[in-house]
């Protein structure tokens, strides 16, 4: 198994690895956090202050204790700013063609060089980065929401709903989703293509993830407060939304963040193959596709989008890893509270 598939496998594997944070460990998590809170409170007391440290504060502190996570966060913030306001500084609009400099190397006028058709690479990269980030973030959030609702519902209703639901989920996983997304997105052209791409990524991306969430919910549904809510006559969907989904909160947040990496990767792969975003719209994958044909004559067309793309995925991955370690009660990688 190779590239994409390895990618898929990695995705599900990391999903599994991330999710070894069993919700039943929440009690342990609380205990550990309480201890840390006490330790910190103790320090404060010595100084004569009495301030309760909340869970969020602890998560934030643990997150910022990890240098790699901070580096990732700073990198991502810079990239987002670059995507939002970068076009203000460039001298060219991404749709303008400079016929006097076709395929020129980076210079004072065109900071990142130009393509063979005369498009300014700087403007294209800013534009493509914005598109790729938007697609990655929106589809990752959509995937998480869909997977959370369906995954927890299947586990909550049990019985035949669960059996049929699982069968359908397995069935949907039979045909590789990459193929189905390509089929849907291919037919849409022009500026609405990116919306279709998001639709495709969400419509076929939630399935494996919903399976994992169902496994986690199976231990949640046996908890006393869920049973109590059931006996009190609280409606099923209310229980799912109010009691089950929030308890998977940390898992969902981590997976939304790491899901961005997968979504950006899928987007660039599809666009690179010419099956995703197409001209006149542009994304980092489309730029890679342009760069492929001029690897030898104009390597800057390939190199700048690649660097930006790696920075995006790498920073998001660092943030995701940092969040996981901040939320995971067993993690010792960040050192201990002083």
């Amino acid at each position, binding site marked *: 198994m*190779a590239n994409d598939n*390895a990618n898929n496998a990695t995705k599900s594997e990391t999903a599994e690895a991330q999710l070894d944070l069993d919700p039943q460990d929440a009690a342990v998590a609380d205990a550990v956090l309480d201890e840390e809170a006490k330790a910190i409170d103790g320090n404060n007391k010595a100084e004569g202050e009495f301030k309760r440290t909340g869970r969020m504060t602890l998560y934030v502190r643990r997150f910022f204790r990890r240098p790699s996570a901070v580096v990732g966060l700073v990198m991502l913030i810079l990239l987002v700013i670059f995507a939002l306001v970068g076009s203000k500084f460039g001298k060219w609009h991404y749709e303008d063609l400079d016929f006097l400099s076709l395929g020129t190397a980076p210079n004072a006028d065109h900071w990142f060089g130009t393509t063979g058709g005369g498009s300014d690479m700087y403007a294209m990269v800013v534009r493509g980065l914005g598109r790729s980030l938007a697609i990655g973030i929106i589809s990752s959030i959509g995937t998480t929401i869909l997977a959370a609702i369906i995954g927890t519902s299947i586990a909550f209703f049990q019985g035949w709903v669960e059996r049929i639901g699982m069968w359908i989920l397995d069935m*949907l996983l039979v*045909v590789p989703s990459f193929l189905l997304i390509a089929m849907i997105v291919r037919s849409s052209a022009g500026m609405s293509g990116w919306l279709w791409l998001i639709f495709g990524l969400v419509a076929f991306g939630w399935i494996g993830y919903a399976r994992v969430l169902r496994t986690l919910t199976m231990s949640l549904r046996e908890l006393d407060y869920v049973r109590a809510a059931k006996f009190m006559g609280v409606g099923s969907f209310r229980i799912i939304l109010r009691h089950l989904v929030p308890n998977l909160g940390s898992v969902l947040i981590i997976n939304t963040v790491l899901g961005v990496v997968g979504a950006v990767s899928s987007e660039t*792969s599809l666009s*690179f*193959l010419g099956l995703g975003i197409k001209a006149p719209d542009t994304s980092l994958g489309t730029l890679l596709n342009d760069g492929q044909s001029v*690897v030898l004559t104009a390597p800057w067309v390939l190199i700048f989008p*690649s660097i930006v793309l790696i920075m995006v995925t*790498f920073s998001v991955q660092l943030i995701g890893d940092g969040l996981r370690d901040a939320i995971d009660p067993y993690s010792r990688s960040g050192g201990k509270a002083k």
Partner: protein
Amino acid sequence: MLKYIVKRIVNYVVMLFVAVSMTYFLASAFMDPRSNYMDRHPHPPVASINHSLDLANINDQTPILVRYFRWLKAIFTRWDWGLAPDQSPVGPAIASRIWTSVELVTLATIIGIVAGVSIGVYTAIRQYKWQDRTLNIIATFFLVIPPAVLGLFVVLIAIAINNGVGTRIFYVTGLSSYQGSNPFLWLLDFLQHIILPTIVMAIPGTVSYHLTQRTYLLDSMNSDYVRTARAKGLTLNQAIRKHALRTSLIPTTVNIAFSITGVFTGAVITETVFAVNGLGRYFVTAINGNDINGSVCIAAFGGVCTLTGALLADILAAWLDPRIRLS
């Protein structure tokens, strides 16, 4: 055991049928072979377009159910997967490309598994030491590089090396170019072609097996029976080798079985970058050419691979792990 396997197979066949039918309807709804003809200027007469679409059974003016049952009948009676819009049969075209993809993927998969699992074990034993941290950062870096970027950079580096040395060490397109009959030269030529795609595909495999194997081994290293083994006087290395490692290999084995799908989807990007004419490239062409029958046939082949992997995983898991009840 046999009953269990038969039950699974029946379930998987039903699953495959439903999934492929769903793909057929999806493809028919979203792909528009008529536009292949209508986009030409001037476009051919409508009657002749209809005629060629009818021949391939992809005319959107025929009701979808009629087309679907015709398509099913051809497969079940003659094992005929239909025609592409240009009237070339789909089945043989795919069959002839399977071997190319297998050739391309096998070596990379094996390297990925061996290297990945070894690194995973090595780092798990040294958790949070500098070796673990360094390898982890490298793995994270390669994990997030999109396959297209990785492939294109390997091409760039290979061309730079070729230019630097002055002779052609690496070929960046195709799988073979040697025409003679000397087996040694043929092998050399084959290696010169296969080495770059293999590197491109082995890296993500290695990284993913490394990270998962590390997690699995750490999980079992913290379990009670390993602690018991340590308490009875085994050294850490003995305890890991005799007790922890064996259990941690079960999930990895299951993953390897699932990796069979890779024969087909795995190499789409790599085949495009290195211009190898395998299944991945066929898929891209089929989608771009509005080839409904071709895309569905590829999807069916992908489904068969997935389910074969799933079945193997079921059997291996049941065989390796006595706790899985076979009922």
